[in-house]
């Protein structure tokens, strides 16, 4: 049914892009994303894909060329990390507001400064209000699976929004592990032929793209954009269901790991979820009712569903791999705690900012978070609402 291989995250995503065979890829290399573009360009050179590969001079141009290609009616992709995403900024928002179904793998890396090439989520968290669907991946398998699903989500007529698929820089992008690829033909059939909605190149039905839109209609158009994000939620679940039929692997808006009867739980995104699962297993062996909720879809944010999953727990720790510098908390905490407002028997909820600039997060670190939660349950007191995990002070 599928092909068992040893791949790094970047290799897995490049293979997925080859199978998707997009019409246009415009990209600029940046560590740790570089390998994706490098491997994909070899597919182009070797005739393994039909893609028009545009080597641009910057990420601003990469996103601009991708927007141009997508407007013209092409299935268009790019990929980036950190400062590359930052340089795209202006056009990232434009891609979403033009309702272009662009798919972009983002290999998470700390935004400068100080300059750092390693993983944190400051790059994609910074873009959380840009209007893109954001799907986080725990490992190479999920990065691949999420990438394929992203195409169908983005191009759904009820959505028509760009999608970012993330994986943790180096930790996943450069680590080899076991994963399963689907057969090329199956993927191509499942992803399907792209039929654009209002392509510029359809000269019989001319359209205007990107016109001035002032106070007479701008608000209505932004409201429609917001509606598309609301509509994305059921579509993401439908696509996941259909993908499970193809792959045997099931996905939701988030993953619940031993959460059902848990009294204490952490909420986490990305590769740290995998490390935390081992901690949960060990705690369960010791009789501690620990659980985990791994957010897969961060935009649209599944607030109601998360509130339902966490309601009735005694204490929750949210893990943030970026800082909002708002003197309160990280961005994931702000979302989760807001989702919990008004929930009956709402748990005590605290925030941990961790893994900044690639700082390793060990099982001992995560164990200490569960220990803190156990203490909160025991004493009924929250000593610290925000902790910088493992910080030297």
């Amino acid at each position, binding site marked *: 049914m599928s092909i*068992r291989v*040893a791949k790094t995250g970047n290799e897995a995503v490049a293979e997925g892009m080859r199978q998707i065979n997009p019409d246009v890829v415009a990209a600029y290399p940046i560590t740790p994303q570089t390998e994706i573009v490098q491997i994909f360009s070899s597919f182009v050179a070797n005739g393994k894909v039909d893609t028009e590969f545009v080597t641009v001079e910057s990420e601003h141009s990469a996103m601009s060329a991708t927007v141009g290609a997508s407007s013209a009616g092409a299935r268009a992709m790019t990929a980036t990390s950190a400062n590359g995403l930052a340089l795209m900024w202006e056009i990232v928002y434009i891609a979403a507001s033009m309702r272009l179904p662009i798919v972009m793998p983002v290999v998470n890396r700390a935004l400068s400064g100080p300059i750092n090439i390693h993983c944190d989520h400051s790059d994609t968290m910074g873009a959380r209000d840009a209007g893109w669907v954001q799907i986080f991946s*725990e490992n190479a398998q999920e990065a691949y699976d999420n990438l394929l699903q992203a195409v169908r989500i983005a191009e759904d007529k009820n959505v028509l929004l760009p999608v970012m698929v993330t994986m*943790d820089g*180096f930790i996943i992008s450069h*680590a*080899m592990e076991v994963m399963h690829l689907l057969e090329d033909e199956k993927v191509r059939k499942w992803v399907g032929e792209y039929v654009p909605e209002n392509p510029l190149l359809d000269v019989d039905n001319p359209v205007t793209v990107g016109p001035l839109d002032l106070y007479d209609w701008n608000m209505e158009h932004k409201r429609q954009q917001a509606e598309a994000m609301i509509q994305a939620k059921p579509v993401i679940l439908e696509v996941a269901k259909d993908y499970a039929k193809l792959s045997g692997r099931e996905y939701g808006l988030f993953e619940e790991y031993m959460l059902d009867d848990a009294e204490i739980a952490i909420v986490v995104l990305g590769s740290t*979820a995998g*490390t935390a699962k081992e901690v949960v297993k060990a705690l369960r062996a010791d009789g501690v009712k620990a659980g985990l909720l791994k957010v897969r879809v961060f935009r649209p944010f599944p607030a109601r569903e998360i509130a339902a999953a966490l309601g009735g727990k005694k204490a929750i720790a949210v893990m943030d791999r970026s800082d909002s510098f708002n003197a309160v908390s990280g961005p994931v905490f702000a979302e989760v705690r807001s989702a919990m407002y008004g929930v009956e028997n709402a748990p005590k909820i605290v925030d941990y900012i961790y893994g900044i600039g690639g700082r390793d997060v060990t*099982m001992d670190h995560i164990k200490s978070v569960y220990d803190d939660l156990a203490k909160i349950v025991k004493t009924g007191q929250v000593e610290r609402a925000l902790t910088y995990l493992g910080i030297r002070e």
Partner: protein
Amino acid sequence: MAKLLEIRWHGRAGQGAKTAALVLAEAVISTGRHAQAFPEYGPERMGAPMQAFNRISDVSITIHSHVERPKIVIVLDPTLMSVANVKAGVPDDGIYLINTPLSAAEIRKKLKLEDGKAKVYTLDATQISIDTIGRPIPNTPMMGALVAATGLLTLDELIGDTRIKLAKKLRPDIVDKNIEAIRRAYQEVAS
């Protein structure tokens, strides 16, 4: 957890520690087991001390933190013994595999492992690679030594997978020389 095996490779950038870890993971994965391989990325300059890691298990591995308590330590460059703390986090009954012309007894003394609980293996992998491949690239023979010392793979499994992997990049005669290096290392590694 008990069945999770962790390995740390010490090398200098350019010596192939990362490649060796990747080759090992791929070979283990091809036997149906689970494995991870990942390097530590620091300043990228030739000759700088660096580390690479493996995890090996019969069941899927979800941990994605650094390896802190490796059961097996492999040192590709003997000069690292005085630079890197090769014993860091290793249990008393850990396994050390060192590329050096010195004997296992001499290394045991150097590393203060004379109580005998740890296993120490040595091999002059640099000399073997010069003799066979013609260049000082110790990572390939060290793979042969690792397999001999630990039984992680059979010699045939290692050679079979290495042949496939190297054939994608190297001329057939160079592939043969690498295989010869593995065979010699498998014979010559000593404890």
